[in-house]
């Protein structure tokens, strides 16, 4: 049938099973928005307050559902406003397709109104991008974009469409998405070597990253951990990739890892890393990381082997398939002495937090109460900073796709948009965005989106009135010269929430925590909770950048 370019975009989204998109209209996407109006019964469009919010919402939608997130923006500033969101998705390997309008083909390259070279700008932060030059190629380009976003290591793809193409008519034939190409299994001799390393090990340590979540390898990981009888540590990106209520789970590893993980890596005789890229936040100092034990790495991206750290054996492939393959060859063993040591450390070094006064709220108690009241089943989004680490430390994530956080890029302002996306993708789940007051100020405008579409997210602002994480570094390494981190803002959080049409609650003391959280959870509408905490609380343990991961600071 003969369709306009804009209608072809809609049809291609439908081909891919897309029923929800996030975006913001503008001149160059007028035709696309006209088509969205026509297709409004089939594709739901959520208009955010700012394009950045749309990109984060598409990201949160993708992370929480495993589907591809889609965002739409106009040319120029609309497109550049997506960039932080695209870069966030890129760093955390989230499948996303960003569709941008551009000026008409005849105006390209002339510094036309709202023109920007968005394919040039996003080249370093996308898996690939396209500037469509002929409407005949439009459908196949969008199909390819979805395919690239989901093949191998996932990530964002941008499609830039000049305005005239969205009006041009072209013959369209529906085509079903092809099955995604599978990453081949490692060579049998490699697998055999790995099995030998594993069988020889008496003190194995299993460390899992975001690849476990991306490939749906959580069950295979659990089976593997049981077969080899190892403690399990998860990176920030793998929170929930292993059930944290399980006795094998020992917390995170790295800059804010647990002391148990630090001792485990010091004493293990084999480190098995699954779906992780050994970020500098985990290694802390590559030269001092796991020096005495061999490392076996499983990853889908060949470029992640020997990039940040040299490994002894690499298994290139999809985490789920490789683990399944290994599980088939492994007879369960017991390492009682080793697991006894692990449990001893866990008992000796629990994560603790001293309250500055009897009545003061500690983030630990806040997170643990939230965990209890939501039965460890809520989807938790976060912003970036201390509150993010506390959420990861004290909420017990049990399932993959339950923790939505910007790990690689560390994007303050990510969480609220991402929480909206996660709630739209999971209408039956409770979604809470845990924010700091600094991050909250970056994109608080998205409260208006929550209110307008009645997206019932809980925005929990952990308000210490300072930029806590940076301030913590200033305390440790800059002699408490608190340059620009004491915010001294006059913001009335409750009034601001109400101004956006969102209910507001306040937690001032310890005794407020449970009743206020209960009240918020009972509401089926967006609500902001302003929770005051002491500005001098720190995230501990902590390994300073460049320090040895085995020697975290436990008190300060």
């Amino acid at each position, binding site marked *: 049938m003969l369709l306009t370019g804009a209608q072809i975009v809609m049809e291609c989204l439908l081909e891919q099973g897309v029923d929800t998109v996030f975006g913001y209209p503008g001149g160059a996407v007028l035709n696309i928005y006209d088509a969205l109006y026509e297709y409004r019964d089939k594709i739901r469009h959520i208009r955010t307050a700012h394009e950045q919010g749309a990109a984060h919402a598409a990201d949160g939608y993708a992370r929480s559902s495993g589907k591809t997130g889609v965002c739409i923006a106009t040319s120029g500033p609309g497109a550049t406003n997506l960039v932080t969101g695209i870069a966030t998705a890129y760093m955390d390997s989230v499948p996303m397709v960003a569709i941008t309008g551009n000026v008409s083909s005849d105006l390209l390259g002339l510094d036309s109104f709202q023109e920007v070279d968005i*394919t*040039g700008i996003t*080249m*370093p932060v996308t*898996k*690939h991008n396209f*500037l469509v030059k002929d409407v005949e190629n439009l459908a196949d380009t969008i199909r390819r974009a979805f395919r*690239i976003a989901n093949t191998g290591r996932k990530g964002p793809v941008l499609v830039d469409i000049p305005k005239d193409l969205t009006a041009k008519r072209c013959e369209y034939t529906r085509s079903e998405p092809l099955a995604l190409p599978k990453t081949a299994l490692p060579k049998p001799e490699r697998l055999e070597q790995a099995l030998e390393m594993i069988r020889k090990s008496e003190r194995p340590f299993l460390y899992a990253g975001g690849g476990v979540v991306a490939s749906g390898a959580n069950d295979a990981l659990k089976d593997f951990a049981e077969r080899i009888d190892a403690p399990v540590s998860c990176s920030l990106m793998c929170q929930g990739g292993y059930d944290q209520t399980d006795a094998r789970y020992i917390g995170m590893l790295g800059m804010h890892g647990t002391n148990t993980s630090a001792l485990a890596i010091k004493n293990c005789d084999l480190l098995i890393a699954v779906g992780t890229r050994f970020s500098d936040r985990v290694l802390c100092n590559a030269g001092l990381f796991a020096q005495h034990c061999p490392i076996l790495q499983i990853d889908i*991206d*060949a*470029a992640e*082997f*020997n*990039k940040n750290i040299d490994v002894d054996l690499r298994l290139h492939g999809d985490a789920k398939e490789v683990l399944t393959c290994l599980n088939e060859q492994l007879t369960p063993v017991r390492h009682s002495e080793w697991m006894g040591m692990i449990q001893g450390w866990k008992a000796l070094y629990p994560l603790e937090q001293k309250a500055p006064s009897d009545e003061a709220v500690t983030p630990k108690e806040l997170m643990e109460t939230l965990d209890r009241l939501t039965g460890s089943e809520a989807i938790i989004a976060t912003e970036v900073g201390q509150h993010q680490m506390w959420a990861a430390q004290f909420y017990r994530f049990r399932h993959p796709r339950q923790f939505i956080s910007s790990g690689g890029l560390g994007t303050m302002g990510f969480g609220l948009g991402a929480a909206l996306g996660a709630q739209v993708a999971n209408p039956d789940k409770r979604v809470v965005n845990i924010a700091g007051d600094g991050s909250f100020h970056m994109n608080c405008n998205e409260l208006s989106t929550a209110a307008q579409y009645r997206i019932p997210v809980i925005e929990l602002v952990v308000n210490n009135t300072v930029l806590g994480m940076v301030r913590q570094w200033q305390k440790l390494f800059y002699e408490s010269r608190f340059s620009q981190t004491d915010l001294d803002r006059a913001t009335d959080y409750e009034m601001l929430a109400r101004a956006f049409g969102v209910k507001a609650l306040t937690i001032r003391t310890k005794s407020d925590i449970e009743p206020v959280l209960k009240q918020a959870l009972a509401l089926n509408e967006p609500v902001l909770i302003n929770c005051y905490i002491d500005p001098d609380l720190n995230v501990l343990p902590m390994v300073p950048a460049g320090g040895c991961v085995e020697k975290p600071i436990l008190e300060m």
Partner: protein
Amino acid sequence: MSNQTGEKEYILSVLARNNPGVLLRISGLFSRRCYNILSIVAAQTENAEYSRILIVVLGDDRIVRQVDKQLSKLEDVEDVSVLDRDRAVVREHLLMKVERTLQNSEKLVEIANVFHANILNVEPDSMILELTGDAASINSFIELYNPYHVVKILRTGTMAMMK
């Protein structure tokens, strides 16, 4: 080919789809990952849909393996090979303008003849020479002309083909 830090020159041959921006994708990857390009030569292949890009990289084995794997991830890149100098024909092309006077003219032509270089153009006060060869012979060639005031040098960078 090694310098003090143990870095070597490696020749990478990249076959890429001839899409707009492909050179930018490849060179951008080098700059953002802090790999050093010494030279880059790109042109369409026998098949107009593809370009062949020859890149000389300064680094060690580890870096070159990383470059290879990162390049291979680019959607437009079809193939990456690290060429073994001993098993490849390695050539470079030079255009050089040299100042000419009545006194040195004969000497300039004499050097060109020794190298079997071509004289492409002669003006009253300058001449343009052309030479194809490996990097070492081109370097010697330039060295010999240095005393006569070299006005301008254009080098293509390394081209290489497996035997």
